[in-house]
């Protein structure tokens, strides 16, 4: 039996809006979300939508308050503040909020639960240190890692990246190539926090370690920002102003090996990641060779290696040599433009939004001076290959 996604190419993105990405926005996150949602609906040629989906995780390890409309914006909050009684409103609970929310939106449209679904993502940068936590005692499973000093996502990614470096002999110069590429592309994007601010290899190599081998530049910068996308059926999309971008397939996955909190060994990431990729290709009915616009997730820079390898875009253990040889240089003909949208490293902590937005803009031919004429099939990744997911987008149904 084929596991091709039944709704493959039957639901499409028909409009979007992206707020400026700033360290601290003047408006509250809720106001920014309402404004961005209204602009996305107008962009799609619609007065209203009847469905709302988001993943509202606040990805901080710090002791910050969770307040709807202030530090997070849920689907129900947004619908209520747009004055809509939604036919469908839902939140994705897991990791990989963007592919998770997209797949829920596609399912809602394909099933008829809603006609037009707005997927938004609102990210907040609280005042003070993003991850600092003043806890004085650790409970539950944290009691096994916190007294040892293993805490927060930098320690998490430092472990897996250290394994990668030792196993495959990856150099800091190779990771510098990733950062230079992400920031080069981000510097060209009008709404990016890093607009007109590329990073040099020398700046990267000079940065001190935080959790060795992770330095500041390996982490996306916390920001305030909101993006919104409108989904509808391929049929209805024909009557709307912009060229639709079809959702061809999607996949997610989760590890089954019991682990301590934030304990992500490299073999877990790549083992489950290869299954995520297998599901993705089966869902879309294509393989990695047909993808000309892969957009790998890069909230922490080592994820670039992990996704390139998990998706089969280069052999396992080779991604560091691949990037060092210009393999993802968006300006080099024949290379894979895997960070052409700037990613999170080149835009700010918008989670998987830059990957999704780049797929939409390029495939709908709305990328202006950044337009890549050859782009036909994109993949937008988010989070870790073993704890997140990916979506295949196409300019044409197939």
């Amino acid at each position, binding site marked *: 039996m084929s596991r091709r996604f039944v709704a493959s190419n039957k639901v499409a993105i028909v409009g979007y809006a992206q707020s400026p990405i700033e360290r601290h926005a003047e408006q509250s996150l809720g106001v920014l979300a309402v404004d961005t949602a209204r602009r996305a609906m107008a962009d799609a040629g619609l007065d209203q939508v009847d469905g709302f989906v988001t993943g509202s995780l606040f990805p901080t390890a710090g002791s910050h308050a969770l307040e709807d409309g202030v530090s997070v914006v849920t689907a129900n909050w947004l619908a209520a503040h747009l004055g809509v009684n939604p036919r469908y409103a839902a939140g994705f609970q897991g990791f990989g909020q963007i592919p998770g929310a997209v797949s829920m939106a596609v399912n809602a449209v394909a099933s008829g639960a809603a006609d037009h679904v707005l997927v938004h993502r609102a990210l907040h940068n609280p005042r003070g240190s993003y*991850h600092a936590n003043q806890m004085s005692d650790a409970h539950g499973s944290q009691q096994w890692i916190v007294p040892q*000093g293993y805490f927060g996502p930098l320690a998490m990614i430092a*472990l897996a990246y250290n*394994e990668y470096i030792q*196993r495959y002999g990856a150099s800091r110069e190779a990771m510098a190539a990733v950062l230079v590429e992400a920031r080069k592309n981000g510097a060209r994007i009008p709404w990016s926090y890093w607009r007109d601010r590329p990073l040099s290899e020398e700046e990267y190599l000079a940065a001190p370690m935080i959790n*060795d081998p992770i330095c500041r530049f390996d982490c996306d910068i916390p920001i305030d920002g909101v993006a919104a996308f409108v989904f509808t059926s391929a049929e209805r999309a024909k009557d709307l102003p912009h060229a639709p971008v079809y959702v061809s397939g999607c996949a997610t996955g989760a590890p089954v090996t019991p682990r301590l909190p934030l*304990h992500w060994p490299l073999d877990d990431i790549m083992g489950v990641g290869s299954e995520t990729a297998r599901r993705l290709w089966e869902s879309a009915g294509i393989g990695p060779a047909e993808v000309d616009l892969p957009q790998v997730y890069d909230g922490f820079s080592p994820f670039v290696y992990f996704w390139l390898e998990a998706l089969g875009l280069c052999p396992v253990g080779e991604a560091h040599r691949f990037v060092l040889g210009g393999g993802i240089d968006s300006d080099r003909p024949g290379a894979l433009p895997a960070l052409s949208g700037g990613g999170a490293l080149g835009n700010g902590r918008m989670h998987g939004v830059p990957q999704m937005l780049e797929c939409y803009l390029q495939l709908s031919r709305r990328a202006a001076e950044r337009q890549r004429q050859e782009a036909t099939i994109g993949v937008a990744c988010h989070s870790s290959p073993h704890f997140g997911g990916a979506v295949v987008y196409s300019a044409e149904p197939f």
Partner: protein
Amino acid sequence: MHQSFLPGFDQDVPFLLVDVELVEQPDLRIIGRLMDGPDADLHIGASVQVTFERLSPDIAVPAFALEGKR
């Protein structure tokens, strides 16, 4: 670890954490301080033995030391 996001570790940085698989139970991995210090000559696959890090007179947490160097 050159920086900690938790209180109480400022005097300890830099310190070195290791992810240890138990000989007795493959794939059971636990994380602890390597008592040999941050400059220890360390590589994946190195053998360690469990020891204890005394945090206060009545609290000790599992830690590790390179085998043969205790």
